[in-house]
């Protein structure tokens, strides 16, 4: 097991390195000079040269590259060209927003997608249950998250005025209250702040969650179909167990295993989804930060954001692989 973990870790290193290299070189061939982007077209040649030197952009590419790699390992992505303060600080501030969005939309997706998938599999070929559910899943799969987001905004924010149009609520405040212990001394304020965050979170989580639910329901349907055709399900039925017990005690648990393996994939889809979702809902977060950074030619910020995205995906995949081996004793490590 230890050997396997070490080997998997070692494989992840060149992957990460390669991914970071792609980001670095892609950002370097970008048209447009970050100094021009910062200071405007009117800036004097001297000022621009000064800016280029200060940012270290005049150094050889190889030196910049090695420097970038070495500092990224230490999670130091330099300073944002526009805002001035460290990228890592920026990312640390944005990360919780994206995390709550991913987690809450995953919850929405699981709560809606898994039951739909199970029902659809159990009532397979039923024209009244399976077919409509599958069509629904196909629609959800085809619906771009930014469009669903806009539709939700039109109905729930603009027409019904139930949810806010933009923003992410005061998540920093909530975190601060938790850290300082204020959450326990003045619980009323804390709950109000949490409520505000959830109020802002509802529509984005619903939009992203519903589009993810489509994928989840399709995967759980096929996982369930696979499981209920197994011999142990027949055995369970043969020994006279009720259908409910067969489904809950035997099928459901075994179905969750293949689902577990797609969590890695799921995180990748969800993270991509946050780029679009955060933009639609004008919500702070890593995705919105990335899009803004690209627009502003803020290399370090964009690099930092993409590197963090990639790191998350690689690490999640690694963890899922190991988790899978732990959960399913039939899997052996080599």
């Amino acid at each position, binding site marked *: 097991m230890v050997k396997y973990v070490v080997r998997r870790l070692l494989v992840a290193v060149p992957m990460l390195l390669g*991914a970071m290299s*792609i980001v670095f070189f892609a950002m370097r061939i970008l048209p447009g000079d970050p100094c021009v982007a910062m200071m405007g077209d009117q800036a004097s040649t001297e000022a621009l040269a000064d800016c280029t030197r200060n940012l270290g952009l005049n150094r050889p590419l190889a030196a910049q590259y090695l420097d970038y790699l070495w500092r990224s390992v230490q999670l130091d992505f330099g300073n944002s060209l526009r805002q001035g303060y460290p990228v890592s600080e920026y990312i640390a501030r944005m990360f919780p927003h994206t995390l709550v969005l991913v987690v809450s939309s995953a919850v929405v997706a699981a709560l809606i997608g898994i039951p739909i998938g199970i029902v659809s599999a159990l009532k397979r070929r039923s024209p009244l249950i399976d077919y409509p559910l599958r069509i629904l899943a*196909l629609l959800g*799969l*085809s619906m771009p998250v930014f469009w669903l987001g806009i539709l939700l905004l039109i109905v729930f924010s603009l027409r019904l005025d139930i949810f806010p149009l933009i923003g992410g609520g005061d998540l920093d405040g909530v975190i601060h209250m938790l850290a300082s212990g204020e959450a326990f001394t003045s619980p009323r304020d804390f709950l109000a702040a949490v409520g505000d965050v959830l109020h802002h979170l509802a529509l984005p989580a619903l939009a992203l969650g519903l589009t993810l639910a489509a994928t989840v329901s399709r995967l759980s349907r096929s996982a369930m179909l696979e499981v209920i055709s197994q011999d142990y399900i027949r055995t369970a039925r043969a020994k006279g167990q009720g259908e409910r017990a067969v489904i809950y005690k035997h099928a459901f648990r075994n179905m969750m295993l293949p689902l577990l393996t797609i969590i890695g994939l799921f995180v990748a889809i969800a993270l991509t989804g946050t*780029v*679009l979702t955060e933009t639609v809902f004008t919500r702070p977060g890593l995705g919105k930060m990335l899009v803004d950074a690209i627009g502003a030619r803020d290399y370090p910020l*964009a690099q930092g954001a993409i590197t963090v995205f990639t790191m998350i995906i690689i690490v999640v995949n690694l963890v899922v692989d190991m988790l899978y081996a732990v959960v399913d004793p039939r899997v052996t490590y080599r």
Partner: protein
Amino acid sequence: MAISRRAESFDLGIPVDRREPRRSLGGQLRRWVPIGIGIVMAVCMVVLAAAAPLIAPLSPSAQYSDAVLKGPGAVDRHWLGTDEFGRDILSRIIWGARVSLQVGLASVAWGFLLGVPLGILAGTLGGPVETVIMRGTDMLMAFPTLLLALIIVTALGGTLLNEILAIGVALTPNFARLARSLALTIREQDYIMAARALGNGQVRVMARHVFPNALHALVVVATLYIATAIRTEAGLSFLGLGIPPPTPSWGNILSEGRQYIKCCPWITTFSGLAIMLAVLAFNIVGDALRDLLDPRLRGE
């Protein structure tokens, strides 16, 4: 066995019994109706895109100052309303189909051309070639499709060609992986051994025996990736990284319409609907093809 999540080998069921069980009328309908619907939708889109100049009622760039931000039907000639410059939404959506379809088809073709040979090479030859190719795809797979396309398009600039290039490259690792896993199964088949025994070289074996046998599974997946490519293009355009205005693409119509969702929700509603229908069409065709061609589901 080591754990591999993505590269499971495909059961091609090569020695399948080709005789189909006799199907009831209901069974035949279930089989052919979805694929029919999908194909009709996809063909409609292709016709729409190809014949845009003939079908679109008005020019996509003509600005009607007397009809700025008018709702659907408010002015007779604008069925789906107009945008902030008084341009006809219906005509822009019809022209926008060109961008989506061009990017969808060309980028998938590009990804296919890059990825499939690499995958077949890796799967058939094995050894260090496989390791190098697969580690490379692993690296690219660490990026979700949209993110990778976004990085490339940002680096190269948003033009039609760059979008195709970017999405194609982003799809490449997916094709390579699938082609490899197919090749892994195929290379164990007796007919490959026979082909080798007859003195065929590696290249010929790959081109004449491995590739044709992997083709149907690859085509199914390619259809599904057209849907992914169209959605990714729309996403890029929506983020302002796709084809720049005034050329209409569904994503940029939607993106421009975002500022006006309060007064004029039809701009975003109809352009988004177009994206969804296009993606849906290719998803349906791909799904139906998979059900038809995947032997594991046959005779079910």
